[in-house]
């Protein structure tokens, strides 16, 4: 069953990771899980995912940093990165949404609360 594409879910909330994982698995994706940016990098090195659902605010290494790292690496820049932002659009002035005004280079943004159906739609769009 190795033709199933691998999606890595990174969020410090295990309940969220589990819910998204269950949904993805029900749609015939393989799922890897990580709970912070450092763990995520270890996972990526072990087995390269096709797409990463990446939370922004996390301990150790946040989503922006990991995203920048991946997008500046020749080996990993092709991996699709979907950034999860819990901060509603109302708080547009904080550095959590704009990362001090720098371009995050993420492929797409998923606002929290996540609508699982919409998330699946976006994932399928990217992974064909």
């Amino acid at each position, binding site marked *: 069953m190795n033709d199933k594409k691998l999606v890595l879910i990174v969020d410090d909330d295990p*309940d969220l990771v589990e819910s998204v994982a269950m949904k993805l698995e029900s749609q015939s994706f393989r799922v890897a899980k990580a709970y912070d940016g450092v763990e995520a990098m270890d996972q990526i090195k072990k087995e390269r995912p096709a797409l990463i659902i990446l939370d922004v*605010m996390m301990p150790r290494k946040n989503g922006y940093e990991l995203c920048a790292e991946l997008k500046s690496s020749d080996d990993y820049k092709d991996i699709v990165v979907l950034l999860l932002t*819990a*901060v509603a659009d109302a*708080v547009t*002035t904080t550095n959590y949404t704009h990362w001090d005004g720098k371009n995050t280079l993420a492929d797409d943004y998923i606002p929290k*609360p996540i609508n699982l159906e919409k998330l699946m739609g976006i994932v399928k769009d990217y992974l064909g």
Partner: protein
Amino acid sequence: MTETETDIHTEYNPYKSKILVVDDEARIRDACKIVLEGCGYDVCLAVNGVDGLQRIQEEHYDIILLDLMMPELSGFDVLAQVKSLHPDTVVIVITGYATLEHSVDAMKKGAFDFIPKPFTPEHLRVTVAKAIEYTNALRDIADSRSRMRTMINRLSDGVMCTNQDNRVVLANPTFLRMIGCPAASVKGRDIHTFIDNAVLLDMIHQSLETPESEFAERTQEITVSGANNLSGETVLSLRCSPFRDRSGRNLGVITVVHDITTLKQMDRMKSEFVSTVSHEIRSPMNSVLMQLQVLLDGLAGDITEKQREILTRASDKIESLARMASELLDLARIESGLISQEREKVDMLEIIKDQAAFHLPGATAKSVEIVLEVPPCLPPVLANRRNMEEVLSNLITNAVKYSPDGGRITISASSGTEGLSIQIQDTGIGISAEDKDKIFQRFYRVKNDKTRYITGTGLGLAIVRSILEAHGGRVEVKSDPGKGSTFSVFLPLLNAA
């Protein structure tokens, strides 16, 4: 000077005008003393020119009555000395042989008026009163100049006034410090010789070119380094307005600079706090929502109809809780004044149309009609766009929510001397007189049999009011219970600012 200020000045002015009479004729001196003291002036006498000169050197007099023909030192010599020692002292010449020649000569040398001998007490009183009026006016000007200079120099805001040629009329020390100019005075200098900030220079130029028909205060924020002798950056808020003469011609520009560094720092800290709190509250709620979604999707096994019903209701509750959390944070942000800082020229007509279009699907679902009765254009207001969208959105949402199926919402707008007004009229359930006073309070919700199934947080109208007050506007409501309500929004116009 305003009328009130003049009144206060006259009423409480304890000042007694001081007059010196210099005449070698004792009869004249004594007569003057009696008449003038009778008028309430403080009168001193000098027996000749030398005596007079000595007194003038020792003390300042408002008015000097000066005999022209005296032995030793003549009136003309005294006059010349007075003019060089006390240019603001008013000299009235007393001349024994009232020839036009002498009087004209004295006037040319700086005398204010002349009295020919012999004169009547009335003549003396009138002439002196006229001179007193003149010195009082001079003193008032000097006083208000000094008052203004002290005021401007003591201001914690930087102030600069420039003329039509972009030369400095006045600039207070705070201004010079803020823009990092080391000079102690820049009076008379061209602004380009000591200001290098392009934004500020551009604002001054544009203000100077503002046509009369347009009152526009220009505001900008700039970041400069090293001002205030502080390390790091200083954020300055700049405001430029043209000032005009009676015929409306631009005479120059007043620039006011306010240091908003601390405000900005607090702003940033608050934003970060709000964002952290919002993350901490929303994250768990979001993951609960997802868990419920997974259960509802049957991903964790089949569920019964009853379980589905309960899970759906739990889901709805959490969702409204999440919404309330963001509204609370919005309100906190507005009340701390964070939002109103960023303002721009806003066309409310555009926002009305956008919001009406945005809420149309929701209204249509309830068979509620939204009608726009707006003029083809509206004058702009100075506001925060997001705030204005929120005001309209909250009021339209309410109108839809509290309208029965088949209702009608009319949005109208107009502008007048009072400013811009926008009405959102519905044919809903209306608001009782008792509730009308309370609906703008936080968390207040009208509770009766008609509102039982309408959900909300009770924050929408509180947010509307906070926003409008922060913009110098207001919101009012008129209602006929059972027939509908009209919410009116008033905003000041940009031009009237």
